[in-house]
């Protein structure tokens, strides 16, 4: 598993103590961000080059449509460009970019779902059946691929929690952050992280119950 912890330095942690916002602004990454905030194009390019692989991996993990990964990544970095002035150094840069990326992926999935519904509503039942039969085998039988079914299921559950909860769950579960690392990267204290994650998990369980489908049924 390629975790952020393994791939990137931890700007907010030094010797186990949490650094302040001012300290982070004076790190190499903080200086890079401040240059980008001042309109330095070279600094923005540095940020893109530093995090593009990570962003591609996050998107690929969620969306799985290789053709769309680059489009979404472009949108992510365009948003980073336009919003970098609002970055307040409360969290680390990658945590901020991670949140933008996850939100962009969910936005993409939501739009894709709407487009599919609109498209299907324009077709007759016979036409829908014909289109389904001409789709590639992988998409024709999504449940045959247990991993794809589990992915769709967890994505559906994640739409029932807030953006912040979704980001914390993803950072903890997918990226493998510890509570201590999450606290350092988000600027929240450890107890707050624990309580937020606990509530998020409760919501996931309730959402699973509401979907009337025990998670065990879709697990591998």
């Amino acid at each position, binding site marked *: 598993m390629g975790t952020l912890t393994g791939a990137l330095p931890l700007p907010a942690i030094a010797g186990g103590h949490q650094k302040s916002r001012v300290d982070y602004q004076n790190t190499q990454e903080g200086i890079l961000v401040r240059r980008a905030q001042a309109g330095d194009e070279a600094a923005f390019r540095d940020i893109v080059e530093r995090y593009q*692989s990570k962003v591609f991996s*996050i998107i690929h*993990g969620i969306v799985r449509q290789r053709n769309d990964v680059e489009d979404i990544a472009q949108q992510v970095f365009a948003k980073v460009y336009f919003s970098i002035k609002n970055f307040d150094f409360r969290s680390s840069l990658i945590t901020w970019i991670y949140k933008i990326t996850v939100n962009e992926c969910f936005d993409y999935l939501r739009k894709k779902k709407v487009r599919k519904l609109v498209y299907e509503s324009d077709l007759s039942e016979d036409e829908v059946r014909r289109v389904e039969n001409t789709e590639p085998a992988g998409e024709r039988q999504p449940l045959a691929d247990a991993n794809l079914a589990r992915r769709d299921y967890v994505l559906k559950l994640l739409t029932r929690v807030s953006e912040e909860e979704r980001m914390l769950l993803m950072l903890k*579960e997918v990226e493998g952050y510890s509570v201590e690392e999450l606290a350092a990267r988000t600027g929240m204290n450890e107890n707050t992280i*624990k309580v937020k994650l606990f509530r998020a*998990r*409760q919501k996931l369980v309730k959402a699973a119950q509401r979907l009337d489908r025990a998670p065990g049924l879709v697990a591998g």
Partner: protein
Amino acid sequence: MHQVIVESLEDYIGGALAPAEQRDFEAHLEICAECRREVDGMLETSSLFDSLRAPEELSAPPGFYARIVAEVSKGQAPTFWSLFSLDAAFGRRVVFASLLTMAVLGSFLISRETGYSAGPTSSETVMAEHDSTNRDTMLVTLTSYYEP
């Protein structure tokens, strides 16, 4: 859910509890059916997340940065309507100043209006408004008076 579970849940799910803490955690689950049921549900949903890990590392294709620049330029290109748009804070100030000006002007006009009589003037009023010592002026005014 009991505090001992909330406190240690993340480390328990991540397999990072010290042996003694793990024993305490599991001992509580043995005696508390409600916590056991909830933790089971959380462990099941937790196990679903590995499906969100990218199956392979993807690297950005050549020319990716150039395409971002193009995307950013597209977002920056001024449209016809954007020429009329204002910065939000500045716009709020303009709206506030306009409202304040309207309020001051309105109250000024209302105070001026009270100086005039509301209805049409009668001939008696015209006579009362004139200096009674100047008979010629009053006669001229009365001959030119038009009854509305």
